[in-house]
């Protein structure tokens, strides 16, 4: 079971709330402060993508964010309810056609969001099936850094 679960209406103004909650729970779980910007950005990208998918497919169901604290790691899963084909995560590299990537985003494609997540997070898994898509990311925690 998730440590904290957040459901929000698929609207852009709630993405910031999801970032704030995720960062607060990550900090509490003992995620290194040095990667907190990455946690915020990655969860924001995943939620923005989910909101975009819901809006463009007229899905009014909420976006679900599950924050789970295990012994050695902290995981975030962002789930949408838009049935889609499996997405292949592409690592961005030096040879990537950045302008084309940027144009894709300007056209509201979700590739840039995934590229940012894959560039930021070492442990990431993107899955999708007939019921929806899931982005699962995790970061190591330092138990001795737990807040009192």
């Amino acid at each position, binding site marked *: 079971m998730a440590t904290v679960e957040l459901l929000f209406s698929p609207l*852009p103004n709630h*993405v910031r709330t999801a970032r704030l909650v995720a960062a607060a729970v990550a900090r509490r779980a003992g995620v290194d402060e040095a990667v907190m910007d990455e946690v915020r*950005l990655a969860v924001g*990208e995943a939620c923005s993508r989910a909101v975009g998918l819901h809006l463009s497919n007229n899905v009014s169901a909420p976006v679900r964010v599950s924050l789970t604290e295990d012994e050695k790691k902290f995981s975030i899963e962002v789930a949408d309810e838009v049935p889609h084909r499996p997405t292949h995560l592409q690592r961005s590299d030096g040879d990537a056609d950045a302008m084309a990537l*940027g*144009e894709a*985003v300007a056209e*509201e494609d979700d590739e840039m969001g995934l590229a940012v997540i894959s560039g*930021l997070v070492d442990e990431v898994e993107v899955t999708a099936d007939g019921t929806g898509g899931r982005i699962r990311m995790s970061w190591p925690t330092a138990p001795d850094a737990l807040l009192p």
Partner: protein
Amino acid sequence: MDLSLSTRTVGDRTVVEVGGEIDVYTAPKLREQLVELVNDGSYHLVVDMEGVDFLDSTGLGVLVGGLKRVRAHEGSLRLVCNQERILKIFRITGLTKVFPIHTSVDDAVSATD
């Protein structure tokens, strides 16, 4: 924190000072500002991002969109940014090759190419 925008003219350049968070919610405001400037004939833009606390891929998309618009008029779009956490996003997406990124507004305003 919401997005704050202000513009000023320095020579033939228009400096857009951005503050706060650029994300999926606030990026449309930045897009509107850039479109309005280009429609009003400002083709040489300097976007000062020193006051930006957060930038995501939606924001990057808006900046790329702005760049495409000014380039259609043989203009330019330069960025001012010294913040490592913001620069990192440009690096991992390869956009450091697309945008001239300067360390100060003075530097960006006086740059030619």
